């Protein structure tokens, strides 16, 4: 007994020593006061220590300005999915810090994109670390308003010189039911259809029937007519993408205008029957339901063994992620993941790929789509709202704003003055503007409990078109309506 316990004690001591060593190695990052040599490695205190000591900025006097982006300037991995945004932040942060020397120091805290909205809501409620500014879609607004997460910006925004230049419909999307403005829109990200011209030589079909006809022909060539985000992952984000584009293009919507969910309408049923047909007839591959953005691979056409798709309805910002791409005629754009986000834009400029609005169905007069809005909110309890406002003003200067709209914005500038800049005079921006002009509306209409609504809608439609293709559509939609509306009572 005594002997074994001594033996064990030795093992224990050895283990503890190992662990202590490990801990000591990790200490520079965790220690309260990092030693001078280890300072640059310390992400722990993102404050003044982060400013490279070499530039000798008098950082202590400047106030911190904290942002939440889905991008991480410290991630220099060129193959990271967010490499475009990461690289942008890395270049833009020193510029901002130089412009506001002695005044503000910009500190960014990266967040997972699909968790940002809930993270901010809980952080504000929970007295967590709240940023001064968060980059978000306007779709989050109902959630923020319900939970009292963001500041009313009306008076400040209206007093700014650039206010008159903003696209009124984008400002409207940032306006709450009380006619107050809660976010500042910078770029519009309409949902459009990217398609390979070789597969649609006569242009993208105008109606669902034409599309089905062409899809049958493409199937003969072993090409899937369409790919889309059909997974129920990412908190039900599918509800805002292809599902909504089809439903809106069939003249349908998700709500009754009074805050109730109303999926069970003749238009929606027709739209879902159409989506069912796409799956049943094999016009889209299984990748569309896999999640993790595997559906994008179909459009890329890089992997010779992977399925090949002809079109992809998604947000205009899709070009940042869908790369490199290879046209059906064999031209390849980009060799590896390109942190500038260029390959897809090149394909569009070369005329191999094009952008269109969705086709209409069920006799609807015009197609519909969801419009995402790349915008900024200032959370309640932000410590440095002045820094946030200075940053927004800084971005409204075309010298800084153009690049922002191109990279993290990933869409069309809301500031109409910017739209006249030369960089936006390219096929991509022109086609995206034409494909979405006056058609796109936020998906949620009058719904308010958006996280719940998204999950219910995505799961219901997924079930109807994939898991239970023989189930009664009207009954399932009615069940979804009842489930959501229970919470309204």
């Amino acid at each position, binding site marked *: 007994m005594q002997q074994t*316990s001594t033996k*064990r*004690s030795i*093992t*224990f001591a*050895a*283990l503890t020593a190992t*662990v*202590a060593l*490990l*801990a000591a190695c*990790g200490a*520079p*990052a*965790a220690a*309260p006061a990092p030693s*001078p*040599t*280890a*300072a*640059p*490695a310390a*992400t*722990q*205190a*993102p*404050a*003044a*220590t982060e400013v490279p*000591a*070499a530039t000798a900025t008098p950082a202590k006097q400047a106030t*911190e300005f904290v942002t939440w982006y889905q991008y*991480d300037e*410290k*991630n*220099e*991995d060129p*193959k*990271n*999915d*967010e490499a475009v945004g990461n690289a942008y932040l890395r270049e833009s942060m020193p510029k901002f810090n130089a412009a506001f020397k002695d005044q503000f120091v910009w500190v960014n*805290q*990266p*967040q*997972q994109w*699909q*968790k940002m909205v*809930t993270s901010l809501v*809980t*952080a504000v*409620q*929970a*007295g*967590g*670390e709240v940023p001064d500014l968060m980059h978000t879609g306007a779709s989050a607004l109902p959630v923020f308003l319900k939970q009292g997460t963001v500041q009313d910006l009306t008076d400040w925004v209206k007093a700014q010189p650039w206010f008159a230049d903003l696209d009124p419909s984008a400002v409207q999307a940032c306006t709450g039911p009380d006619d107050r403005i809660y976010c500042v829109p910078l770029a519009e990200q309409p949902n459009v259809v990217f398609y390979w011209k070789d597969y649609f030589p006569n242009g993208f079909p105008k109606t669902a029937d034409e599309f089905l006809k062409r899809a049958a022909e493409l199937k003969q060539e072993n090409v899937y007519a369409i790919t889309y985000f059909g997974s129920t992952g990412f908190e039900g984000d599918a509800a805002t993408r292809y599902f909504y584009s089809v439903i809106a293009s069939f003249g349908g919507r998700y709500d009754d205008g009074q805050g109730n969910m109303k999926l069970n309408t003749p238009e929606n049923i027709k739209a879902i029957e159409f989506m069912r047909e796409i799956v049943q007839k094999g016009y889209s591959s299984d990748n569309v339901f896999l999640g*993790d*953005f*595997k559906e994008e691979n179909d459009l890329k056409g890089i*992997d010779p*063994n992977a399925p090949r798709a002809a079109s992809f309805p998604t947000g205009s910002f899709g070009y940042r992620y869908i790369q490199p791409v290879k046209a059906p005629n064999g031209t390849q754009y980009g060799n590896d993941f390109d942190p500038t986000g260029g390959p897809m834009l090149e394909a569009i400029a070369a005329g191999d790929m094009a952008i269109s609005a969705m086709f209409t169905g069920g006799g609807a007069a015009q197609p519909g789509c969801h419009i995402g809005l790349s915008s900024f909110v200032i959370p309640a309890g932000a410590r440095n709202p002045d820094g946030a406002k200075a940053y927004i003003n800084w971005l409204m200067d075309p010298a800084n704003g153009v690049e922002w709209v191109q990279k993290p914005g990933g869409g069309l500038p809301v500031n109409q003055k910017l739209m006249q800049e030369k960089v936006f005079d390219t096929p991509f921006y022109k086609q995206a503007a034409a494909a979405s002009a006056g058609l796109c509306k936020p998906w949620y209409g009058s719904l308010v409990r958006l996280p719940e609504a998204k999950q219910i809608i995505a799961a219901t439609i997924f079930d109807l078109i994939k898991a239970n293709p023989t189930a009664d559509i009207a009954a399932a939609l009615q069940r979804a309506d009842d489930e959501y509306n229970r919470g309204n009572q």
Partner: protein
Amino acid sequence: MMATYRAFAARKPAARIAANIAAIGVCFIMIFPVFSTLVLSFKQQADVIRTPPQLFPCDTPSEPFNIAACRFFIEGYQRIIDLQPNPQALLGTEVRGRIINTYLPNTIFYSVTGALMVTVLAGSAGYAFSRYEFRGKRVLLIGILAITGIPLLTNLLALYQIVVDLRKATGPLFDQLVANGALTRDTARLLRDWQDRITLVCIYAGFFLPLSIWIVKGFFDTIPHELEEAAFIDGASPAQALTRVIVPLAMPSLLAAFLLTFVGIWNEFIANYLIVGTSRQNLRSVIVGVYDLTGSNLINYQVLAAACVLVMLPVIVVFLAARHTFFQAMLEGAVKG
């Protein structure tokens, strides 16, 4: 299954071989996922997405397997660790990967501190339960036993609210101290961080304590009282008796409590994710870091695999080094707790 049982009873040599083969098969199933992840983490992208998939990237156009042709890369690890030259850092390079420079030290801190706390507290409570008779002892012991079954999950909402209430209680105080100039903003932030860290460790300690108390108490029960008595008769003070006699005797069970808690906290995900992971990014544990990584590296499985290996390896090593204590701990904990 029955064939093996018969083999056990009859002890035929053929049956022994069959049993060994069966055991090797089981071992293979249990090890293979870990092993294949290790191999995957050393592949290059082109071999990762090959169809049909291959376990080893060692095929040539002519042969299915040629050890000389193996294509192993460390790209996955490079991207996780992300070494960047920095003349100011130690050795001229710095680790930029958040998983390594922030989340791993966090996890080590949570695991080691939490496990030490549990060891001390379980030792103290286990000793009291084993050596003293008092009213309500039986009820308390059964209560603690029942609590070992309560998962962290159902308490999380409340624990989250408690952490929030604590933050709201101390937040204005820190703000005031910063306003007075008593603290700099950096110090205030560090204090806030440490408040959350310590709260989290305390939550872990409270969660893993009941099982450890049972393990330690059960072990104390097997140590004869006479050994301590003898120490007292020899004129030792209570402190001396504790450090020289009691702690060395109880060491195996204390080590068991330490290890079980260490592994438990190392692998804990949901509490860390919900309590600090969403709003205090720099306090995330390494598993939350891996979860986070998947949000922006959807295609590069070698990177995900490398991260998984980096998380798995330390605990596997700890387990292999202290496996005897582990087995003993789990059996004691399982049979008695």
